[in-house]
């Protein structure tokens, strides 16, 4: 068993950390009225979370609790009001992020959107094209490569966005409900492909999802957040064999593990 509620076990065992979050608190200020009046929303309330290199962690929690905020903080796109965040892979191009919305550039074709991170890194065109092609295949979007975002369905847009994250083969992959807009079967195929990539490239994945079964299937470890203000209410390994196949979904252990998560979600005061 890898994870625990406190961060001490990691330090004792000196496993390299991909992400180390300590006491992170984030409060949003919402200005109202003309004279500086403001409301505040406490999104994260003292989050501690260490993620080992190479692990696959699912992050679950009620809607609006602060999951996206936490991911943004890990990605360095937002800064906590209190607490510290250390990210090992914060080298250029080593973090990838699938945002909750697709956030494609509307003036670029799908292929050009997927190529963006490589372009920004200065990868030469030929290499780029090959990688883009592969990423598009991974998300089953090869035949829409020349289309523009406005010509895609919702699920296709999300898949383009996923391809954009995968194309860099990042060290740390942050995914915010990446498969929510996909049908069950596509989703399962992508789940499996993601697992394969994770294993092959030794990625560290932090994966937000609302689908308990998906979390159970994918993750080594699941972290459940409470309702806002979010704190960790459950943080434990998923009790399933390390290598999972389509058949895993049918096993009783799978249903049990999923049940544990659902129960944890239910406990966290909304």
């Amino acid at each position: 068993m890898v994870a625990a509620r406190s961060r001490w076990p990691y330090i004792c065992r000196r496993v390299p950390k991909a992400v180390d979050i300590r006491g992170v608190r984030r409060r949003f200020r919402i200005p109202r009225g003309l004279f500086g009046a403001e409301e505040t929303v406490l999104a994260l309330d003292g989050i501690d979370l260490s993620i080992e290199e190479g692990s696959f962690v699912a992050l679950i929690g009620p809607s609006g609790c602060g999951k996206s905020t936490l991911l943004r903080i890990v990605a360095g796109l937002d800064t906590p009001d209190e607490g510290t965040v250390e990210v090992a892979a914060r080298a250029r191009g080593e973090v990838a992020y699938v945002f909750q919305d697709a956030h494609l550039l509307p003036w670029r074709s799908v292929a050009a959107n997927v190529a963006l991170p490589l372009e920004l890194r200065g990868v030469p065109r030929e290499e780029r094209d090959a990688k883009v092609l592969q990423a598009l295949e991974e998300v089953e979007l090869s035949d829409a490569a020349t289309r523009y975002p406005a010509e895609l369905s919702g699920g296709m847009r999300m898949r383009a966005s996923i391809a954009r994250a995968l194309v860099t083969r990042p060290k740390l992959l942050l995914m915010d409900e990446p498969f929510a807009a996909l049908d069950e079967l596509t989703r399962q195929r992508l789940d499996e492909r993601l697992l394969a990539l994770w294993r092959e490239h030794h990625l560290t994945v932090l994966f937000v999802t609302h689908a308990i079964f998906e979390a159970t299937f994918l993750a080594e470890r699941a972290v459940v957040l409470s309702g806002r203000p979010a704190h960790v209410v459950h943080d434990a390994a998923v009790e399933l064999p390390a290598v999972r196949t389509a058949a895993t979904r049918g096993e009783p252990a799978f249903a049990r593990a999923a049940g544990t998560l659902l129960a944890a979600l239910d406990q966290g005061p909304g």
Partner: protein
Amino acid sequence: MSTSRSFVAITLPPFVAAVVALAVWEGAARALSVPAYLLPPPSAVASAAVGDASALAGACVTTGLASLVGFLASAVIGVAVAIGLASSRIVERGLYPYAVALQTVPIVAIAPLLVLWCGAGPRAVAASAFIVSVFPVITNSLAGIRAVEPALRDLFTLYGASRSQVLFKLELAHAAPQIATGLRIACGLSVIGAIVGEFVAGFSEGSPGLGILVMTSYRQLRTDLLFAAVGCSALLGMLMFGMVSAASSLVLRRWYVAAR
């Protein structure tokens, strides 16, 4: 096929509008018997235009070149200034008001400086066209850059984009439609800027521009020729407008995929 059809769709409406407008104008000029020295009927303007065709053509070339140069300078410098202003709120707050000030300066007031710095003639005229037309480019480009969605900025930050990558691949790309709007405003202004520049800093010999022609015909109460010259300046403006529109609809096709 579809191209030729869309060509018709684009050129026919203004043409129809022109015919209608001219007919109404001619009718009104006759019916209301507005004296010709105030508002000559289009037929009189047309015959003046034919009579002075070579002078008008030469003037169009002179003024057209100056306004084109001024316009291009506005496009380049306007966008560059907007980029500078966008770099920080403080810079923007500090300098933007002075861009406004620039716009309110009557060209005549700085004519001697213009002539001193650029010499009389085409350079000073182009400078005038530039001064008059640069502000809308700045304002629209700045607004466009400022309107970039934070989420897209995040994306670029995440992938470690350099400042210049953010600028070219995100900010300018995103602002492109609004920059085009600024350029649309600038093209008419650059023509009027050139004409006003000619009033105070042009050459009145050689190939005098439309501004000189306007002054001459105004002075001599040749209202028909005056309107012909004004018509030429309008045509110049429309020509540049058409070029900007065509270029932007070519370049920006991708931006408007959603709007089809």
